[in-house]
Protein backbone atom coordinates (compact mmCIF):
# COMPACT_ATOMS: atom_id res chain seq x y z
CA UNK A 1 0.00 0.00 0.00
CA UNK A 2 1.53 3.38 -0.97
CA UNK A 3 2.44 5.70 1.87
CA UNK A 4 1.17 9.27 2.21
CA UNK A 5 4.08 10.86 0.35
CA UNK A 6 3.67 8.45 -2.59
CA UNK A 7 -0.01 9.31 -2.71
CA UNK A 8 0.81 13.00 -2.74
CA UNK A 9 3.36 12.54 -5.53
CA UNK A 10 0.61 11.05 -7.66
CA UNK A 11 -1.00 14.48 -7.79
CA UNK A 12 2.18 16.57 -7.58
CA UNK A 13 1.68 19.99 -9.16
CA UNK A 14 2.67 20.33 -12.79
CA UNK A 15 4.10 23.80 -12.22
CA UNK A 16 5.63 24.40 -8.82
CA UNK A 17 4.07 27.66 -7.76
CA UNK A 18 4.90 29.61 -4.62
CA UNK A 19 2.75 28.69 -1.64
CA UNK A 20 2.90 24.95 -2.31
CA UNK A 21 1.95 22.77 0.62
CA UNK A 22 5.01 21.97 2.77
CA UNK A 23 4.30 18.23 2.92
CA UNK A 24 4.08 18.12 -0.87
CA UNK A 25 7.32 20.10 -1.23
CA UNK A 26 9.13 17.71 1.11
CA UNK A 27 7.76 14.67 -0.76
CA UNK A 28 8.92 16.09 -4.11
CA UNK A 29 12.39 16.95 -2.82
CA UNK A 30 12.73 13.47 -1.30
CA UNK A 31 11.73 11.62 -4.46
CA UNK A 32 14.04 13.76 -6.60
CA UNK A 33 16.99 12.70 -4.46
CA UNK A 34 15.95 9.05 -4.22
CA UNK A 35 15.50 5.98 -6.40
CA UNK A 36 12.17 7.15 -7.76
CA UNK A 37 13.68 10.24 -9.42
CA UNK A 38 13.52 8.81 -12.95
CA UNK A 39 9.92 7.61 -12.59
CA UNK A 40 8.86 10.90 -11.08
CA UNK A 41 10.68 12.78 -13.85
CA UNK A 42 8.72 10.80 -16.45
CA UNK A 43 5.49 11.61 -14.64
CA UNK A 44 6.33 15.32 -14.56
CA UNK A 45 7.23 15.35 -18.26
CA UNK A 46 4.00 13.48 -19.06
CA UNK A 47 1.91 15.96 -17.04
CA UNK A 48 3.71 18.99 -18.51
CA UNK A 49 3.06 17.73 -22.04
CA UNK A 50 -0.66 17.32 -21.35
CA UNK A 51 -0.85 20.71 -19.62
CA UNK A 52 0.71 22.27 -22.72
CA UNK A 53 -2.00 20.76 -24.94
CA UNK A 54 -4.62 22.06 -22.48
CA UNK A 55 -3.14 25.56 -22.66
CA UNK A 56 -3.41 25.31 -26.44
CA UNK A 57 -7.17 24.75 -26.31
CA UNK A 58 -8.44 27.57 -28.51
CA UNK A 59 -10.97 29.88 -26.97
CA UNK A 60 -13.78 30.59 -29.36
CA UNK A 61 -13.36 34.03 -30.95
CA UNK A 62 -16.79 35.12 -29.82
CA UNK A 63 -15.97 34.17 -26.24
CA UNK A 64 -12.48 35.65 -26.39
CA UNK A 65 -13.98 38.98 -27.36
CA UNK A 66 -16.36 38.63 -24.46
CA UNK A 67 -13.46 38.19 -22.01
CA UNK A 68 -11.75 41.26 -23.36
CA UNK A 69 -14.65 43.70 -23.45
CA UNK A 70 -17.53 42.53 -21.33
CA UNK A 71 -17.42 43.15 -17.64
CA UNK A 72 -19.54 40.15 -16.83
CA UNK A 73 -17.88 39.58 -13.55
CA UNK A 74 -17.94 42.57 -11.29
CA UNK A 75 -14.64 43.27 -9.66
CA UNK A 76 -15.02 42.55 -6.00
CA UNK A 77 -14.61 45.79 -4.15
CA UNK A 78 -14.23 45.24 -0.50
CA UNK A 79 -16.36 47.67 1.44
CA UNK A 80 -14.84 49.36 4.44
CA UNK A 81 -17.17 47.42 6.73
CA UNK A 82 -15.83 44.11 5.44
CA UNK A 83 -12.30 45.46 5.64
CA UNK A 84 -12.81 46.50 9.26
CA UNK A 85 -14.30 43.11 10.17
CA UNK A 86 -11.32 41.23 8.80
CA UNK A 87 -9.69 39.41 11.77
CA UNK A 88 -6.22 40.35 10.54
CA UNK A 89 -7.18 44.03 10.47
CA UNK A 90 -8.78 43.75 13.91
CA UNK A 91 -5.65 42.07 15.32
CA UNK A 92 -3.42 44.74 13.80
CA UNK A 93 -5.65 47.53 15.08
CA UNK A 94 -5.57 46.09 18.61
CA UNK A 95 -1.78 45.70 18.43
CA UNK A 96 -1.39 49.29 17.25
CA UNK A 97 -3.72 50.53 20.00
CA UNK A 98 -1.70 48.69 22.65
CA UNK A 99 1.59 49.99 21.25
CA UNK A 100 0.10 53.50 21.02
CA UNK A 101 -1.18 53.25 24.59
CA UNK A 102 2.21 52.15 25.91
CA UNK A 103 3.96 54.96 24.02
CA UNK A 104 1.41 57.53 25.24
CA UNK A 105 1.81 56.27 28.82
CA UNK A 106 5.59 56.48 28.59
CA UNK A 107 5.44 59.97 27.07
CA UNK A 108 2.99 61.12 29.75
CA UNK A 109 5.15 59.55 32.44
CA UNK A 110 8.21 61.49 31.33
CA UNK A 111 6.43 64.68 30.29
CA UNK A 112 7.16 66.49 33.56
CA UNK A 113 10.38 64.70 34.28
CA UNK A 114 13.23 66.44 36.01
CA UNK A 115 16.89 65.33 36.23
CA UNK A 116 16.51 63.24 39.40
CA UNK A 117 13.23 61.55 38.39
CA UNK A 118 14.92 58.34 37.20
CA UNK A 119 16.84 58.01 40.46
CA UNK A 120 13.62 58.59 42.39
CA UNK A 121 11.82 55.84 40.46
CA UNK A 122 14.67 53.46 41.14
CA UNK A 123 14.36 54.19 44.84
CA UNK A 124 10.61 53.60 44.71
CA UNK A 125 11.45 50.10 43.51
CA UNK A 126 13.79 49.76 46.50
CA UNK A 127 10.99 50.97 48.79
CA UNK A 128 8.57 48.42 47.36
CA UNK A 129 10.96 45.51 47.87
CA UNK A 130 12.48 46.42 51.30
CA UNK A 131 11.51 45.24 54.76
CA UNK A 132 12.02 47.35 57.89
CA UNK A 133 14.31 44.67 59.38
CA UNK A 134 17.03 45.80 56.95
CA UNK A 135 17.25 49.13 58.76
CA UNK A 136 19.00 49.97 62.01
CA UNK A 137 16.24 50.52 64.59
CA UNK A 138 16.07 54.15 65.63
CA UNK A 139 13.05 55.87 67.15
CA UNK A 140 13.25 59.65 66.91
CA UNK A 141 11.93 62.58 64.88
CA UNK A 142 12.88 62.38 61.21
CA UNK A 143 14.20 65.93 61.33
CA UNK A 144 16.76 64.91 63.95
CA UNK A 145 18.60 62.53 61.62
CA UNK A 146 20.54 65.26 59.75
CA UNK A 147 23.20 65.37 62.47
CA UNK A 148 23.52 61.61 62.48
CA UNK A 149 24.12 61.52 58.74
CA UNK A 150 26.69 64.29 58.97
CA UNK A 151 28.52 62.98 62.03
CA UNK A 152 28.51 59.28 61.23
CA UNK A 153 28.46 59.19 57.42
CA UNK A 154 29.82 62.64 56.48
CA UNK A 155 26.72 63.36 54.42
CA UNK A 156 26.17 67.11 54.18
CA UNK A 157 22.72 68.67 53.70
CA UNK A 158 20.94 65.35 54.13
CA UNK A 159 18.10 67.26 55.79
CA UNK A 160 14.45 66.18 56.10
CA UNK A 161 12.24 69.14 55.06
CA UNK A 162 10.00 70.77 57.64
CA UNK A 163 6.88 69.22 56.12
CA UNK A 164 8.09 65.75 57.19
CA UNK A 165 10.50 66.58 60.02
CA UNK A 166 8.12 65.68 62.84
CA UNK A 167 7.33 62.15 61.66
CA UNK A 168 8.43 59.39 64.06
CA UNK A 169 11.03 57.02 62.66
CA UNK A 170 11.30 53.23 63.01
CA UNK A 171 14.80 52.90 61.64
CA UNK A 172 17.31 54.16 59.11
CA UNK A 173 20.23 53.01 57.01
CA UNK A 174 22.75 54.50 54.59
CA UNK A 175 23.72 52.45 51.57
CA UNK A 176 25.51 52.78 48.23
CA UNK A 177 23.52 52.28 45.07
CA UNK A 178 25.23 51.81 41.69
CA UNK A 179 23.21 54.53 40.02
CA UNK A 180 21.93 56.73 42.86
CA UNK A 181 25.17 56.58 44.93
CA UNK A 182 24.93 57.39 48.69
CA UNK A 183 21.34 56.99 49.83
CA UNK A 184 19.89 57.55 53.28
CA UNK A 185 16.69 55.59 53.83
CA UNK A 186 14.31 56.26 56.73
CA UNK A 187 11.40 54.07 57.72
CA UNK A 188 8.47 56.00 59.23
CA UNK A 189 5.83 54.66 61.59
CA UNK A 190 2.95 56.39 59.85
CA UNK A 191 1.39 54.44 57.00
CA UNK A 192 4.64 52.54 56.34
CA UNK A 193 5.99 55.66 54.71
CA UNK A 194 9.66 55.79 53.68
CA UNK A 195 11.96 58.77 53.19
CA UNK A 196 14.98 58.86 50.93
CA UNK A 197 17.79 61.39 50.78
CA UNK A 198 20.19 61.14 47.85
CA UNK A 199 22.52 63.28 45.71
CA UNK A 200 20.72 65.30 43.03
CA UNK A 201 21.29 64.59 39.36
CA UNK A 202 22.94 67.19 37.19
CA UNK A 203 20.89 68.54 34.28
CA UNK A 204 21.83 68.66 30.57
CA UNK A 205 24.09 71.67 31.16
CA UNK A 206 26.00 69.89 33.92
CA UNK A 207 24.45 72.06 36.62
CA UNK A 208 22.42 71.14 39.67
CA UNK A 209 19.24 73.16 39.75
CA UNK A 210 17.48 72.92 43.09
CA UNK A 211 13.72 73.28 43.29
CA UNK A 212 11.71 74.13 46.37
CA UNK A 213 8.33 72.94 45.08
CA UNK A 214 7.14 69.35 45.38
CA UNK A 215 7.23 67.05 42.38
CA UNK A 216 5.64 63.64 42.04
CA UNK A 217 6.93 60.39 40.57
CA UNK A 218 5.18 57.04 40.33
CA UNK A 219 6.43 53.50 39.96
CA UNK A 220 4.68 50.15 40.34
CA UNK A 221 1.88 51.42 42.61
CA UNK A 222 4.19 53.56 44.73
CA UNK A 223 4.23 57.34 44.70
CA UNK A 224 7.03 59.65 45.76
CA UNK A 225 7.01 63.38 46.34
CA UNK A 226 10.34 65.17 45.92
CA UNK A 227 12.02 68.41 46.63
CA UNK A 228 15.66 69.34 46.09
CA UNK A 229 17.73 71.63 48.23
CA UNK A 230 21.51 72.19 48.42
CA UNK A 231 22.13 69.50 45.83
CA UNK A 232 20.33 66.82 47.84
CA UNK A 233 16.98 65.31 46.95
CA UNK A 234 14.45 64.39 49.57
CA UNK A 235 11.69 61.95 48.67
CA UNK A 236 8.77 60.80 50.79
CA UNK A 237 7.42 57.57 49.36
CA UNK A 238 4.36 55.47 50.10
CA UNK A 239 2.14 52.90 48.44
CA UNK A 240 -0.79 54.66 46.78
CA UNK A 241 -1.47 57.71 44.64
CA UNK A 242 -0.70 61.43 44.62
CA UNK A 243 -3.66 62.29 46.87
CA UNK A 244 -2.28 60.36 49.87
CA UNK A 245 0.88 62.44 49.87
CA UNK A 246 -0.71 65.73 48.86
CA UNK A 247 -2.58 65.64 52.18
CA UNK A 248 0.66 65.84 54.15
CA UNK A 249 1.94 68.76 52.12
CA UNK A 250 -1.33 70.64 52.55
CA UNK A 251 -1.31 70.15 56.34
CA UNK A 252 2.03 71.83 56.64
CA UNK A 253 0.95 74.85 54.57
CA UNK A 254 -1.97 75.42 56.95
Amino acid at each position, binding site marked *: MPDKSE*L*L*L*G*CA*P*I*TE*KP*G*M*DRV*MRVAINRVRQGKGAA*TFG*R*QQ*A*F*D*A*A*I*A*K*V*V*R*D*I*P*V*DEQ*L*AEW*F*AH*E*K*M*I*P*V*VRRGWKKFVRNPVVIAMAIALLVIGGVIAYRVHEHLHDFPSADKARRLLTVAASNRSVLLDPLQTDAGALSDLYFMKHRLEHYDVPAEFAEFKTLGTRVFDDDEVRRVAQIWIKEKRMQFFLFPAEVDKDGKINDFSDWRFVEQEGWTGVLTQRNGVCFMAAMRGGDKDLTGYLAKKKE
Partner: protein
Amino acid sequence: MPVTTENLPQLYRFCFLMTGDVAKAQSAFQDTVREATIQSEAEEPPDRLWYFRNARWRCVSVGEQDLQAEAGIFDEVEISPEAPDQIGQLTPEQLAVWISAAPEPQRSALALFYLDEFTLAELLSVLEMKAGELSELICSGRRQFQSWLDSTTAYYGGKTHDAGQV
Protein backbone atom coordinates in the same frame (compact mmCIF):
# COMPACT_ATOMS: atom_id res chain seq x y z
CA MET B 1 -9.79 34.92 -4.75
CA PRO B 2 -12.22 36.71 -7.08
CA VAL B 3 -12.67 35.74 -10.71
CA THR B 4 -11.64 38.27 -13.30
CA THR B 5 -12.05 38.19 -17.04
CA GLU B 6 -8.39 37.14 -17.17
CA ASN B 7 -8.97 33.67 -15.77
CA LEU B 8 -12.31 33.01 -17.45
CA PRO B 9 -10.54 31.32 -20.40
CA GLN B 10 -9.43 28.61 -17.97
CA LEU B 11 -13.08 28.09 -17.05
CA TYR B 12 -13.92 27.65 -20.72
CA ARG B 13 -11.03 25.19 -21.18
CA PHE B 14 -12.32 23.23 -18.20
CA CYS B 15 -15.79 23.06 -19.75
CA PHE B 16 -14.25 21.94 -23.02
CA LEU B 17 -12.22 19.16 -21.37
CA MET B 18 -15.30 18.03 -19.45
CA THR B 19 -17.62 17.91 -22.45
CA GLY B 20 -15.26 17.38 -25.38
CA ASP B 21 -17.58 19.51 -27.46
CA VAL B 22 -17.32 23.23 -28.31
CA ALA B 23 -21.05 23.91 -28.27
CA LYS B 24 -21.63 22.12 -24.95
CA ALA B 25 -18.58 23.82 -23.43
CA GLN B 26 -19.84 27.24 -24.50
CA SER B 27 -23.27 26.52 -23.12
CA ALA B 28 -21.95 25.34 -19.71
CA PHE B 29 -19.53 28.27 -19.59
CA GLN B 30 -22.14 30.90 -20.43
CA ASP B 31 -24.70 29.47 -17.99
CA THR B 32 -22.12 29.49 -15.22
CA VAL B 33 -21.06 33.07 -15.86
CA ARG B 34 -24.69 34.17 -16.16
CA GLU B 35 -25.57 32.61 -12.80
CA ALA B 36 -22.50 34.25 -11.27
CA THR B 37 -23.66 37.62 -12.57
CA ILE B 38 -27.13 37.16 -11.10
CA GLN B 39 -25.65 36.03 -7.80
CA SER B 40 -23.25 39.00 -7.77
CA GLU B 41 -26.14 41.43 -8.08
CA ALA B 42 -28.17 39.74 -5.33
CA GLU B 43 -25.41 39.06 -2.82
CA GLU B 44 -21.63 38.71 -2.66
CA PRO B 45 -19.80 37.88 -5.90
CA PRO B 46 -18.84 34.19 -5.89
CA ASP B 47 -15.19 33.24 -5.60
CA ARG B 48 -13.06 31.52 -8.23
CA LEU B 49 -13.67 27.99 -6.95
CA TRP B 50 -17.45 28.55 -7.10
CA TYR B 51 -17.19 29.01 -10.88
CA PHE B 52 -15.42 25.71 -11.39
CA ARG B 53 -17.73 23.83 -8.98
CA ASN B 54 -20.76 25.24 -10.76
CA ALA B 55 -19.38 24.55 -14.22
CA ARG B 56 -18.42 21.03 -13.16
CA TRP B 57 -21.96 20.09 -12.25
CA ARG B 58 -23.32 21.70 -15.41
CA CYS B 59 -20.88 19.68 -17.53
CA VAL B 60 -21.67 16.49 -15.61
CA SER B 61 -25.34 17.16 -16.15
CA VAL B 62 -24.80 17.71 -19.89
CA GLY B 63 -22.71 14.54 -20.09
CA GLU B 64 -25.39 12.46 -18.41
CA GLN B 65 -27.48 12.76 -21.56
CA ASP B 66 -24.73 10.99 -23.55
CA LEU B 67 -23.33 7.47 -23.32
CA GLN B 68 -21.54 6.96 -20.03
CA ALA B 69 -18.09 5.46 -19.66
CA GLU B 70 -17.65 2.77 -17.05
CA ALA B 71 -14.87 2.78 -14.53
CA GLY B 72 -12.03 0.29 -15.08
CA ILE B 73 -12.74 -0.57 -18.70
CA PHE B 74 -9.49 0.92 -20.03
CA ASP B 75 -6.17 -0.93 -20.14
CA GLU B 76 -3.38 0.54 -18.08
CA VAL B 77 0.33 0.66 -18.92
CA GLU B 78 3.23 2.41 -17.24
CA ILE B 79 4.21 5.86 -18.46
CA SER B 80 6.63 5.67 -21.36
CA PRO B 81 9.70 7.92 -21.75
CA GLU B 82 8.33 8.74 -25.23
CA ALA B 83 5.00 9.91 -23.80
CA PRO B 84 5.77 13.67 -24.12
CA ASP B 85 6.50 13.16 -27.84
CA GLN B 86 3.34 11.11 -28.25
CA ILE B 87 1.28 13.76 -26.44
CA GLY B 88 2.89 16.47 -28.54
CA GLN B 89 1.25 14.97 -31.62
CA LEU B 90 -2.23 15.32 -30.13
CA THR B 91 -4.62 18.14 -30.80
CA PRO B 92 -6.54 19.75 -27.92
CA GLU B 93 -9.72 18.24 -29.36
CA GLN B 94 -8.30 14.70 -29.17
CA LEU B 95 -7.26 15.23 -25.57
CA ALA B 96 -10.67 16.67 -24.70
CA VAL B 97 -12.43 13.73 -26.29
CA TRP B 98 -10.38 11.32 -24.20
CA ILE B 99 -10.83 13.18 -20.90
CA SER B 100 -14.53 13.76 -21.46
CA ALA B 101 -14.97 10.03 -22.03
CA ALA B 102 -13.58 9.18 -18.58
CA PRO B 103 -16.09 8.23 -15.89
CA GLU B 104 -16.91 10.64 -13.07
CA PRO B 105 -15.24 11.70 -10.82
CA GLN B 106 -12.07 10.82 -12.77
CA ARG B 107 -13.10 13.10 -15.62
CA SER B 108 -13.45 16.12 -13.33
CA ALA B 109 -10.21 15.25 -11.53
CA LEU B 110 -8.21 15.01 -14.77
CA ALA B 111 -9.76 18.14 -16.28
CA LEU B 112 -9.09 20.25 -13.19
CA PHE B 113 -5.63 18.80 -12.57
CA TYR B 114 -4.35 19.39 -16.10
CA LEU B 115 -5.58 22.99 -16.13
CA ASP B 116 -2.52 23.54 -13.92
CA GLU B 117 -4.47 26.27 -12.21
CA PHE B 118 -5.15 25.06 -8.68
CA THR B 119 -3.27 24.09 -5.56
CA LEU B 120 -3.86 20.64 -4.14
CA ALA B 121 -6.12 22.08 -1.43
CA GLU B 122 -8.21 23.89 -4.05
CA LEU B 123 -8.48 20.74 -6.17
CA LEU B 124 -9.68 18.73 -3.18
CA SER B 125 -12.17 21.45 -2.30
CA VAL B 126 -13.69 21.63 -5.79
CA LEU B 127 -13.74 17.86 -6.23
CA GLU B 128 -14.91 17.19 -2.65
CA MET B 129 -12.55 14.29 -2.20
CA LYS B 130 -9.44 13.30 -0.25
CA ALA B 131 -5.85 13.48 -1.52
CA GLY B 132 -5.50 9.69 -1.70
CA GLU B 133 -8.60 9.38 -3.84
CA LEU B 134 -7.48 12.17 -6.18
CA SER B 135 -4.01 10.63 -6.49
CA GLU B 136 -5.51 7.23 -7.40
CA LEU B 137 -7.69 8.81 -10.08
CA ILE B 138 -4.85 10.83 -11.59
CA CYS B 139 -2.36 7.94 -11.51
CA SER B 140 -4.77 5.48 -13.10
CA GLY B 141 -5.74 8.19 -15.60
CA ARG B 142 -2.09 8.55 -16.64
CA ARG B 143 -1.69 4.81 -17.18
CA GLN B 144 -4.93 4.58 -19.12
CA PHE B 145 -3.97 7.58 -21.20
CA GLN B 146 -0.58 6.03 -21.96
CA SER B 147 -2.34 2.87 -23.09
CA TRP B 148 -4.63 4.92 -25.31
CA LEU B 149 -1.64 6.86 -26.64
CA ASP B 150 0.16 3.64 -27.51
CA SER B 151 -2.80 2.41 -29.44
CA THR B 152 -3.55 5.67 -31.21
CA THR B 153 -0.32 7.55 -31.90
CA ALA B 154 0.67 4.98 -34.50
CA TYR B 155 -2.65 5.66 -36.18
CA TYR B 156 -2.02 9.40 -36.03
CA GLY B 157 1.44 8.90 -37.49
CA GLY B 158 3.71 8.83 -34.44
CA LYS B 159 6.22 6.30 -33.20
CA THR B 160 4.80 3.16 -31.59
CA HIS B 161 5.70 2.18 -28.07
CA ASP B 162 5.93 -1.38 -26.84
CA ALA B 163 4.69 -1.01 -23.29
CA GLY B 164 4.11 -3.90 -20.93
CA GLN B 165 0.52 -4.43 -19.84
CA VAL B 166 -0.12 -3.87 -16.16
